[in-house]
């Protein structure tokens, strides 16, 4: 019932022993039987009774030890005293079961007469041999089984982690691909070109600078033309280029400001992370609104040396952006741009783990405020200030 990329919960004690019981029916039983036969054959010369009797005794003991080991393993952990781990209980079970089970065999043999047993030195020797061999072999095998179980658990965990990492990587790759595909949207491109054409034909002096801004934006947003070591400065340049192009297209509806501490410009920064939020703000916040609004971008250093980025718009907000209006406190249906934001979150998670956060809030009276918090450079791998 678990999806392949969900980390299954740690094996429970019950589940762990279920695994052991699985072993009990197959390999471990076969192994115990084989060992019992070998031990019986080895001990046979020391014993008076015929081989089948000796074999019977060793087989019985082997089965009792096996059962004791598994039964101890099935006890729920919380019933045990805090100081006693499950493995210790399982070993104790073997230590107790070996002499007791052997005693049972001999009591049966002597018809319940304990004294008769001690009178016969041969019987005492037989008891010691069987109980001793059973104890030693039982302990060795139990330890082996316990180690194997622990190994399996560790492997399981490692696999889970690898799986989780792979999932994150895949999500990040998907997100990047989706970003690349969505970046230079034909609608955006042709509308912007139409505006440039209008400026050119009317002989406006703004035509040249606007064309240059478009070129800058396209260079940054085109797949394959990304700089290898993108910095916050690069990203802010992209953001400014995008916003000034959109301002040319809707001068009466879009106001914007970008404030950034110049000292931060050299910090390495995941490309398109900020631009995604800014595009969302324009596309889903400002553009659907007849009155338009303002987009504010703020980049500041946090007291811990990390990075704080805020993109706030005064547009229509999530409710206006295509989802049904909701009452206060109600969960909204997936808002427009929800998957784009989900992709961004996946990328941040893949790059920084839990140290990065993307939070969304709705400012009053309407609009959307998105904040990205990145950890300090030394705490994030591969993201350090450039010299």
């Amino acid at each position: 019932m678990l999806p392949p990329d969900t980390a299954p919960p740690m094996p429970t004690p019950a589940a762990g022993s279920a695994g052991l019981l699985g072993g009990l029916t197959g390999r471990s039983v076969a192994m115990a039987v084989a060992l019992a036969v070998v031990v019986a054959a080895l001990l046979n010369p020391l014993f008076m009774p015929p081989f089948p009797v000796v074999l019977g005794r060793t087989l019985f003991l082997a089965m009792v030890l096996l059962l004791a080991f598994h039964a101890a393993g099935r006890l729920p952990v919380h019933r045990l005293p805090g100081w006693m781990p499950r493995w210790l209980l399982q070993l104790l079970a073997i230590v107790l079961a070996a002499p007791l089970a052997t005693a049972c065999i001999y009591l049966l043999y002597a018809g319940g007469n304990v004294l008769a047993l001690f009178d016969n030195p041969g019987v005492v020797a037989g008891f010691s041999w069987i109980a001793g061999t059973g104890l030693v072999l039982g302990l060795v095998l139990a330890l082996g089984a316990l180690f194997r179980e622990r190994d399996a658990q560790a492997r399981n965990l490692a696999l889970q982690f690898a799986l989780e990492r792979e999932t994150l990587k895949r999500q990040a790759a998907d997100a990047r691909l989706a970003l690349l595909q969505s970046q230079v949207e034909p609608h955006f491109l042709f509308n912007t070109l139409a505006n440039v054409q209008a400026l050119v034909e009317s002989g406006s002096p703004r035509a040249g600078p606007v064309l240059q801004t478009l070129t800058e934006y396209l260079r940054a947003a085109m797949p394959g033309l990304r700089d290898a070591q993108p910095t916050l400065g690069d990203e802010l340049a992209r953001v400014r280029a995008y916003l000034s192009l959109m301002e040319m297209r809707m001068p009466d509806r879009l106001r914007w400001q970008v404030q950034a501490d110049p000292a931060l410009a050299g910090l390495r920064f995941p490309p398109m992370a900020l631009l995604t939020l800014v595009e969302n703000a324009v596309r889903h916040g400002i553009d659907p609104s007849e009155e338009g609004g303002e987009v504010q971008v703020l980049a500041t250093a946090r007291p811990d040396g990390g990075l704080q980025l805020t993109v706030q718009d005064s547009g229509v907000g999530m409710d206006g952006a295509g989802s049904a209006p909701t009452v206060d406190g109600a969960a909204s249906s997936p808002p427009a741009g929800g998957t784009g934001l989900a992709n961004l979150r996946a990328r941040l998670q893949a790059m920084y783990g839990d140290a990065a956060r993307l939070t969304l809030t709705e400012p009053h009276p309407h609009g959307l405020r998105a904040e990205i918090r990145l950890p300090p450079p030394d705490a994030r791998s591969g993201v350090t200030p450039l010299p």
Partner: protein
Amino acid sequence: MPTTALIADDEPLLREHLASHLARAWPELQLVGQARNGREAVAMFEELQPQVVFLDVHMPGLNGIEAARSIGRRAHIVFVTAYEQYAVQAFEQGAVDYLVKPFQEARLADTVQRLRERLARPAPEMGPLLDELAAALRERAGTAAPAHAAAAPRWLQWIKASVGPTLRLIPVDEVQYLRSDEKYTLVAWQGGDALIRRSIRELVEELDPDCFVQIHRSVIVNLRHVQQVVRSGNDTADVLLKGRPERLPVSRSYLHVFRQM
């Protein structure tokens, strides 16, 4: 009496651009107004009753198609769009003209020519064409932006909740569990706790069942945040979460959820 026209586009430069081109290509045409959005376009149309309306397809508030629907057969409509691909077929079948931005002078001359011929006849019936265009537009919204459409999320992605004075959008991936009492549901996520006014019964239908499972009449847990399930006697179990001290009870009737694990 000169022919009258109205232009509606949310981008001022493009309105001016079309106006100046029309002045050259059709000097007798009298431009009676320029609207900034669909709502304004309809209002201006009602007031000025122009014979020709140039409508940008993409406009805030009321889009061009909705505006055209409201104008109906009372004027000849020319749609203006920057995005040709999705609609060309629909346009070509219909008796309505269209201009693609950035437009070429020759193409505008064609449009002017066609409009002059058509003005003698009543405007065509556009109902079915508009339905088709609206459908194409919806489809485009779903395909042109893969970042948003990539598997249009079937399940709830965000939960809106008041945290202190702010309304916060909590990504459901980060939600660890939900626990309801009579009136509210507590949302426990990686960033804290919040209360929402929705019932567990509603929520369980909207959450991805691969991640979110109900383990109690009033508790839904996100499997991605489960650290361990501890079975206790008497056919119950407790769920331990990653990074949270709480133990969530699994009641007998939901124990099957963890049976196969």
